[in-house]
């Protein structure tokens, strides 16, 4: 049955694998531990919280909520009222550019580095 596979199939497979590996490499390159987690709603920043302080934050908007916890330098979605619960099952994030996205509620958590950003590293997120 494997004689159905044509040469073009193999080439396509190699090309797609190359694209996959290229993008993996690009995303692993910036592999540094972040200092803040930024919560966004609809792409707009909702709040920024230091990863060094263990706490629980609830993002409330449009009658929906996403509760995430910051623990030992990682952020993790604890609870959400979204339908598919994909965000809740997502593994904890800690490295820059990693993110957890809750599509139904349009909420995203993203790890960022405090250096050179607009809010700076001095402010404590608890003041928010």
């Amino acid at each position, binding site marked *: *049955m494997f004689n*159905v*596979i*044509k040469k*073009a*199939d193999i080439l*396509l*497979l190699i090309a*797609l*694998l190359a*694209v*996959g*590996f290229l*993008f*993996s490499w690009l*995303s692993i390159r910036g592999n540094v531990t972040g200092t803040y987690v930024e919560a*966004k709603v*609809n*792409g*707009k920043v909702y709040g920024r919280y230091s990863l060094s302080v263990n706490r629980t934050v609830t993002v409330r908007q449009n009658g929906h909520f996403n509760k995430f916890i910051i623990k030992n330098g990682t952020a993790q979605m604890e609870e959400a009222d979204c*339908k*598919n619960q*994909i965000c809740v*099952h*997502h*593994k904890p994030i800690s490295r820059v*550019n*990693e*993110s957890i*996205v809750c*599509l*139904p509620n*349009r*909420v*995203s958590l*993203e790890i960022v580095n405090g250096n050179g950003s607009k809010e700076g590293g001095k402010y404590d997120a608890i003041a928010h």
Partner: protein
Amino acid sequence: MPSLTNNHTLRTRRLTASAMFAALALIFSYIEAILPINVGVPGVKLGLANLIIIIALYELDTRYAFFINLVRICLAGLMFTGVMAMLYSLTGGMISLLVMVFLKKTDRFSMIGVSMAGGVAHNFGQLLIASFVVSNIKMFLYFPILVFTGIASGIGIGIVAYVIDRRLPRMLFR
């Protein structure tokens, strides 16, 4: 030499086959909706319904495959997955179909290659609309994983589609 009655019979056969395919694709969508595969990355799934779409693409034609897919996505969206998920499916499904039609037209790829490209294209389309919805281009960090899972599920579905297609009675379509 197709006479008028023959032509009618053919069209009825194809219509019946399409209806059956749409129903079957809907069942596959349902199976996927109740059996979510959780690997920690959103959007990873088998794409069982694509089995039907590929066979329709080869045995009927592009138009039939397009409408079967459209009916399947709209009904599955309203019945199981919700309107937002329908939007993702629609984008993914249409981009995937477009790529598959194109690759099939070149006549250089087997069903397995076509299905593989379709799987990757589907994931790409969903990611595109998802990053648009949350206005976050960082969604593309999932892209490598979705490329690999798209390849794997595409090849799997392609092989199954090929095996099934050879065993289907020809009189279903012509």
